[in-house]
């Protein structure tokens, strides 16, 4: 499978994503933000970082990059797009995912391992995550507090678009397990068509045992299985 990893000025997890994809046996290439085509991409990863210095709002300027036009077109044809951390913020700013990410409730940059509960196992991003298996994956962000207004949250719930919630090591979705103040402990969501997803935690930093967790692999494996199933 061939991953296109976008690269904006001040992306800083682009290499992590390339490395994660390649270490799992896939091919992956960087696509500079000024490119207007994605090449032979089977899936797109928008990596973490501080695109354009987080000026104005996180992701606000990156979303107008030429490459994002190509990503919108790719997604509109059913292509798989995963936004991680800053990538999630960019997808929300671009209107490809509902809601927005604002400053952490604590005003602190939070860099730590969190536990995630997977709510929907029927998406291309979660289909290989065993039921009832909690994921231990790191977060590293200052603006990860997910917000959407009341009707939008109801819409997310009723269409099973909430993919991951922050929880305790025992799987309890409680406020103490919420690192940033996200509504409903939301860590990641997908769009209505289920081919675009974003999450604040970094699966790219949890694909090798020497990094302390390999749980991030389950998300990459989900993408692979979904892609191969679709291509078959």
């Amino acid at each position: 499978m061939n991953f296109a990893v976008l690269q904006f000025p001040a992306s800083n997890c682009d290499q992590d994503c390339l490395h994660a994809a390649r270490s799992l046996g896939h091919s992956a290439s960087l696509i500079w933000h000024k490119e207007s085509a994605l090449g032979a991409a089977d899936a797109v990863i928008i990596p973490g970082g501080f695109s354009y210095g987080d000026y104005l709002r996180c992701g606000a300027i990156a979303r107008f990059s030429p490459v994002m036009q190509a990503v919108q077109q790719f997604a509109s044809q059913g292509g798989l797009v995963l936004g991680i951390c800053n990538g999630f913020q960019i997808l929300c700013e671009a209107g490809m995912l509902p809601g927005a990410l604002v400053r952490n409730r604590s005003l602190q940059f939070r860099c730590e391992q969190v536990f995630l509960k997977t709510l929907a196992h029927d998406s291309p991003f979660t289909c290989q995550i065993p039921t009832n298996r909690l994921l231990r994956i790191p977060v590293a962000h200052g603006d990860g507090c997910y917000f959407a207004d009341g009707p939008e949250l109801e819409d997310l719930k009723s269409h099973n678009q909430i993919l991951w919630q922050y929880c305790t090591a025992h799987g309890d979705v409680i406020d103490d397990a919420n690192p940033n103040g996200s509504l409903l402990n939301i860590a990641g969501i997908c769009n209505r068509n289920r081919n675009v997803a974003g999450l604040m935690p970094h699966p790219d930093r949890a694909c090798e045992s020497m990094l302390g967790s390999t749980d991030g692999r389950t998300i990459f494996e989900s993408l692979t299985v979904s892609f191969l199933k679709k291509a078959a």
Partner: protein
Amino acid sequence: MKARVTITPKRAVLDPQGKAVQNALEHMGYSGIAAVHVGKYLEIEFASGDTPQIRQKLDEACRRILSNPVIEDYSLVIDES
């Protein structure tokens, strides 16, 4: 000609910065504060132009990029001097 854009968080959105500033003010003895909201202020200068046209364009820019309507409100003032 100068446009002044003020962007503030919507009331429903958690504003921890506003809360932290409010706490600091109260701690310093400034009493009677009901709420503080921290936003952004932009000045956009034009060499020349037609005010209604500039207002229309900036209104669009405020919705498309300068503010995020999901979490922010904006106000736009055009100073013709």
